[in-house]
């Protein structure tokens, strides 16, 4: 019995160690230099938020087809995962010595992955910041590490703010005047909240469009409007008056005013304001206003930015870099170029609620029936991000649950932000 028990207990350890016992380096294929058309091998690509359904595969295949115009004999092996699984995918790939050749990731990943040695400097492969012409200037810093370029922005994934004109009218608000300050936003949200006789919310006043443990981006957006930034020059900036005020406001809207239900999302996980379930809230930067999409409902939606201390729009983004130790750096770079192709950007944006960064090159038809995309594009220069140096992934894992503790009133706002600051500084 003792042996069996020991084995059972030790089995729990196995997975963990297997991740830790490998060596670094390695590459994805048996490529060779020379004429791209004659190169053979397999290019491994980790592709977060490329859905495994027909739509996602079609978009990915489009990118692969563009890549094959230059490298027709290189097989592309995609690994399709949600962003939440990206860390474990990359860490296990690194630990097993079989790193990806192309790493797609979000804004916050680039600097920690560069620091870890999981991705290579693109400047070693002929890229420079000058190649990012057309990309808004504020998107450059997140892809730099120690003054070198480590990734290329592909598309932006902003979270817009939107309201329903009809809900405004029903609440006695002027539908031509969006809230400007966070104080106004809170008051409007209260007025827009509709309850039934039992007190249950039938129309959310303000939808944060977040599930539990995922109020990070909303916090960054509110803090940004108050003039604060999550990190500045890799130093944490959230434990500030702006940060405390923003977090307190989210807590008050959810716990005091109850104009928003904590962690509530509809089954399709779409923004409630676009489905008519909320009067106002965060919304996607891609909306299909054709009959195949939400149709006439689009006419009821108005997009806006907060203009409190700063006018800002929160944005994430899809970036791509070359995996450390790849055997096929030239092919990896060609795949990144295929991702940056305007047609790829448009397709990825439609699939993953984004907006192309290389907007000048994108077919204008992308923005037809997509007013959210046009609004997001026009405000990319106002984007604030969630990123901050080498410890960001460590910090990110703690960030969401810690914010929840303050939002739900389990812990004081000041304590939460002070403790998070210690984590960000690597002191915890």
């Amino acid at each position: 019995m003792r042996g069996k028990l020991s084995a059972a207990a030790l089995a729990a350890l196995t997975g963990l160690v297997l991740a830790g016992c490998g060596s670094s380096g390695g590459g994805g294929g048996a490529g060779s230099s020379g004429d791209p058309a004659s190169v053979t091998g397999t290019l491994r690509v980790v592709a977060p938020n490329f859905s495994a359904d027909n739509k996602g595969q079609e978009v990915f295949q489009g990118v692969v087809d563009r890549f094959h115009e230059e490298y027709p004999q290189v097989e592309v092996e995609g690994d399709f995962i949600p962003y939440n699984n990206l860390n474990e995918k990359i860490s296990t790939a690194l630990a097993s010595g079989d790193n990806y050749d192309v790493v797609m990731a979000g804004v916050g990943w680039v600097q920690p992955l560069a620091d870890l040695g999981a991705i290579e400097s693109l400047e070693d492969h002929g890229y420079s910041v000058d190649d990012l012409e057309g990309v808004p200037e504020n998107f450059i810093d997140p892809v730099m590490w120690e003054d070198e370029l480590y990734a290329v922005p592909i598309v932006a994934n902003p979270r817009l703010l939107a309201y329903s004109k009809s809900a405004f009218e029903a609440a006695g608000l002027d539908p031509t005047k969006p809230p400007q300050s966070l104080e106004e936003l809170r008051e409007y949200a209260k007025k827009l909240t509709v309850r039934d006789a039992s007190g249950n919310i039938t129309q959310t006043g303000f939808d944060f469009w977040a599930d539990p443990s995922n109020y990070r981006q909303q916090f960054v957006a509110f803090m940004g409007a108050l003039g604060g930034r999550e990190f500045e020059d890799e130093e944490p900036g959230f434990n500030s008056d702006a940060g405390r005020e923003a977090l307190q406001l989210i807590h008050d809207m959810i716990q005091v005013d109850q104009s928003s239900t904590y962690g509530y999302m509809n089954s399709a996980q779409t923004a409630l304001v676009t489905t008519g379930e909320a009067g106002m809230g965060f919304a996607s930067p891609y909306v299909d206003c054709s009959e195949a999409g939400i149709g006439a409902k689009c006419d009821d939606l108005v997009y806006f930015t907060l203009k409190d201390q700063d006018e800002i729009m929160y944005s994430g983004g899809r970036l791509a870099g070359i995996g450390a130790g790849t055997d096929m750096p030239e092919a990896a770079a060609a795949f990144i170029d295929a991702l940056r192709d305007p047609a790829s950007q448009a397709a990825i944006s439609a699939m993953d609620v984004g907006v192309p960064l290389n907007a000048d090159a994108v077919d204008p038809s992308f923005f037809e029936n997509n007013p959210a995309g046009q609004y997001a594009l026009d405000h990319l220069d106002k984007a604030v991000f969630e990123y901050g140096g080498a410890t960001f992934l460590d910090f990110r894992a703690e960030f969401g649950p810690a914010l929840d503790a303050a939002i739900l009133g389990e812990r004081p706002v000041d304590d939460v932000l002070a403790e998070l600051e210690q984590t960000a500084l690597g002191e915890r």
Partner: protein
Amino acid sequence: MVIASEAPAPVPARAARRRRPSGVERARARAGWILLLPALVHSAIFIAIPALMVVWFSFTDARVFSGGEFIGFENFTELFGDRTFRGALVHTLLYTIAVVPVAMAIAVLVAVALNQQIRARGFFRTLFYIPVVTATVAVSAVWLWIYNPSAGLGNQVLSFFGLSRSGWLTDPDVALPALMVIGIWQSLGTKMILYLAALQGISPELVEAAKLDGASRWQVFWNVTWPGLAPAHFFVLVTSIASSFQVFDLVYVTTGGGPANATNVLAFDIFTNAFQRLQTGYASAETVVMLVIIAALIYLGRLTQRNQEV
């Protein structure tokens, strides 16, 4: 009745040690080792070596793919000052304390009921076992629907009785108990089958004798059936504690440890530290602590069993 037999002539110990095994015995031993070899290799590669490496890593500051440097007990010191770890430990203990005894009690009742000559007995046995053979992800999907705050069955039932809706998985006070319910439901089948097997091992003659002596149904259960289940209790207890401490997939799929870490349990916290924060050394230390706690609990269970044997 004890049958006395003639004792064999004593063999001097030294002579016994010196006696060389016969050719047949040696061949059997060789065959045994050969047959055991695949399992030994598997155990060495996938259990023993990784386990030893976890212990080593727990004393280092290793990150994802770096071996790290030896830092002594620093990880362990840091662990016990870590609010998240302490919370995870408490949640795991609460989960275990709630799920293991409740599920064991229900399983005994169900097993006793399904050990009777009732109609559709096989069907009910299968029904209770289905959650065990169903993937946790599928089980979780069903329970996510039940716990859906707007359209879920849970809140519809509450509404039927005029009660206000509950944020089953979004209320920090409710989320862990909500997962305990799933844990009890899902683990019932395994325990039920083990108890059923134990019940069928209890001598019908003993039950019959007790009845002939005028024992009531409760007296038969308490004085005959319950003691007969003692070995099963121990086995079920030990395996249940181990599996409760390792609960991961349920948390991963339903709550992700939230809200506000209210359902963060040890296995999930280890995963977060290892694969989200990429702190291999720290996660290894946490794993070692978990192993020690499980071992201690199992040892306590064994002590209880020894007392019963005496």
